[in-house]
């Protein structure tokens, strides 16, 4: 029994593929997920949340308010016109914009509700929620930091109490002056956001929340993420299988037999690429049609964009599969390598975890994966309702085609170097 176990262990430790699957891949994935989830909620510079700010008030007080926001370490403030900001959000480039509306300065002075609106992309709800946590205490403190705070607080309390009698108003003002002093002392002792609760209570820190990009009845965010994310990941696994057909041909001698014919050898690879593309397109189409029939994803209204994204995704993914097969020396090597690469690409590219769950640096890293560009393409069409002529959408398609083109080029070189020589 012990001898059998020792034999198995020796075989296991000699088998690189088993070692890769047992240790390297889980370690790689744990590392990735740790980065992805571990970064959420951190306030270091790497996880700064980008906040566009559109100042429609154009007063010194509104400008000072922006400066106050800029002092927040967790936020990266980007002043921008409302039109540009809304476009950036709709294109998926930014999450939200804080609109400082006209009358902000007057409201601050008179103690009224501050005319602030946060317009955001529902798909980035988690990021916006974190942003709110940082934003509300600071907004609440604006009257203290920017205006005649005592007067404003008194006015506010009177309004809250619904008092119109001048005497009662004066009484409230006197009491609020004492309260203000107490709060100010407390604040000077503990100048942390958590201790700003009383200010938040009095001045609200209210921000009107408006979804600029939101779910429709048929195109729910979760459904889209599930379909697009899973479809691209599974496609990558499928194309690797198709690519491996090239290695099977080599192993079974049919590749050699093809080379005996007068056909140009490179046509063998092109044939494999063509079949991989056709199967990939069919697979994606079936997945989206299934999502439409079973879960009600509205593909009819987005057909041209969906088809373009499917074709571009199929092109990029097929090239990946064929390249792997051209690169590797045998089927086992492809299986080990492809599992690792696909899982890593899917993890960082948003197939497994939606990108908006991840810290900013992980979101930036996502651009190296095919999954990212494809999923964003589907988001552009189904979620952001972008036209196929939109530069943002076109840029995603161009990137996918470029990825496909470059990978195909490498596949051709590797095919000539590896496959043809090994026949």
């Amino acid at each position: 029994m012990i001898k059998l176990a020792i034999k198995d262990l020796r075989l296991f430790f000699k088998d690189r593929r088993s070692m890769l699957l047992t240790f390297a891949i889980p370690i790689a994935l744990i590392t990735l997920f740790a980065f992805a989830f571990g970064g959420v909620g951190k306030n270091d510079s790497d996880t700064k949340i980008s906040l566009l700010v559109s100042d429609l008030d154009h007063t010194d007080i509104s400008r000072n308010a922006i400066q106050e926001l800029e002092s927040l370490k967790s936020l990266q403030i980007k002043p921008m016109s409302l039109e540009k900001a809304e476009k950036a959000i709709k294109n998926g480039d930014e999450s939200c914009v804080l609109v400082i509306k006209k009358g902000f300065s007057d409201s601050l002075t008179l103690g009224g509700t501050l005319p602030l609106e946060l317009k955001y992309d529902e798909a980035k709800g988690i990021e916006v929620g974190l942003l709110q946590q940082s934003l509300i205490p600071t907004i609440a403190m604006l009257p203290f930091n920017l205006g005649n705070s005592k007067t404003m607080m008194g006015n506010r309390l009177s309004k809250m109490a619904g008092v119109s009698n001048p005497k009662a108003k004066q009484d409230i003002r006197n009491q609020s002056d004492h309260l203000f002093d107490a709060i100010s002392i407390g604040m000077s002792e503990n100048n942390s956001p958590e201790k700003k609760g009383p200010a938040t209570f009095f001045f609200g820190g209210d921000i009107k929340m408006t979804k600029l990009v939101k779910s429709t009845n048929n195109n729910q965010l979760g459904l889209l993420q599930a379909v697009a994310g899973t479809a691209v990941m599974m496609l990558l696994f499928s194309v690797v299988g198709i690519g491996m057909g090239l290695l099977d041909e080599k192993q079974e001698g049919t590749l050699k037999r093809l080379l005996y014919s007068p056909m140009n050898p490179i046509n063998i690879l092109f044939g494999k690429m063509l079949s991989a593309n056709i199967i990939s397109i069919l697979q994606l189409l079936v997945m989206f049609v299934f999502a439409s029939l079973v879960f009600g994803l509205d593909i009819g209204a987005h057909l041209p964009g969906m088809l373009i994204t499917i074709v571009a995704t199929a092109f990029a993914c097929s090239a990946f599969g064929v390249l792997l097969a051209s690169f590797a020396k045998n089927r086992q090597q492809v299986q080990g390598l492809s599992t690792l690469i696909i899982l890593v690409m899917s993890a960082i590219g948003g197939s497994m975890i939606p990108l908006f769950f991840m810290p900013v640096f992980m979101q930036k890293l996502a651009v190296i994966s095919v999954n990212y560009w494809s999923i964003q393409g589907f988001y552009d069409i189904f979620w952001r309702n972008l036209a196929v002529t939109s530069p943002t959408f076109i840029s995603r398609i161009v990137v996918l085609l470029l990825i496909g083109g470059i990978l195909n080029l490498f596949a051709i070189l590797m095919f000539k170097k590896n496959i043809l020589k090994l026949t």
Partner: protein
Amino acid sequence: MIEIKNLKKHFNGREALKGISLSIKDGEFYGLLGPNGAGKTTTISILSSILNADSGTVSIENFNLNAQSKDIKKIIGVVPQEIALYNELSALDNLLFWGGMYNISNKNLLNRANELLRLFGLEDRKNDKVKSYSGGMKRRVNIAAALLHNPKVLFMDEPTVGIDPQSRNLIFEIVEKLNKEGMTIVYTTHYMEEAEKLCDRIGIIDNGQIIAEGTLDDLKMNSLLKETISITFSNLNDVLTKELSSFWNDLKQIGNIIHFYSSDVKTDLSKLVLKCNQLGLEISNIEILKTNLETIFLNLTGKQLRD
């Protein structure tokens, strides 16, 4: 006509071909005989233009291999050593696919595929998946796939490995027929019986070199080999062996068998039997080993063909 001059090929510093030169006439059935690793497949790979030689020249039907490989590929057929077929496709579909590589019109291709399936005795099962075929049937399809475009020259690289006698005989009949119809055939094998049965001329290749070439009779004549009288004894001992050695110079002992080499078997056999009787040796078996390719090869290389 196939002309090969001073063909050389290295693999990772090892000389696979050390300057092979051959001349094969139109319509000839030429056998390339050698053990595994001798250079047969390398030679076929170069002739069929899927492997570049390091040096040397090859011309097939007046086409130069370096400059006109595409033209050469159109007139040659290659039967690879391995069964290179798509197992999930039927025999007919396989033939239609492989024929499609040669730009044959669909109608002609279908006719030719059916003709070959009939010739190879596979018509009844032409629509069955190849994976359901026996080894011999697969070998037959493997050969048929190389004949779809009616090649002028057919390279067959050990086409009968692991085959049943029935399929082997059928293949022999077909290739002999093709050769009689004018097809030049280059046939590599390490089965000497095949080479003896099929080939007009034989080239013996070992360690990347042609070490002998000619008809079987030429090879026998040139080898100057004697025939062997092989006698098995049941009471052989050292003393008796010594007695035999002093009586017969050219012999070799293998256990209780002694090979006596002879230039005149008829005369020498009676001499030997008489001497054995005188010495009281009990003979349990006598065998006369004729000179054949196996013995010629052994004599030339010191190796068995199946080494």
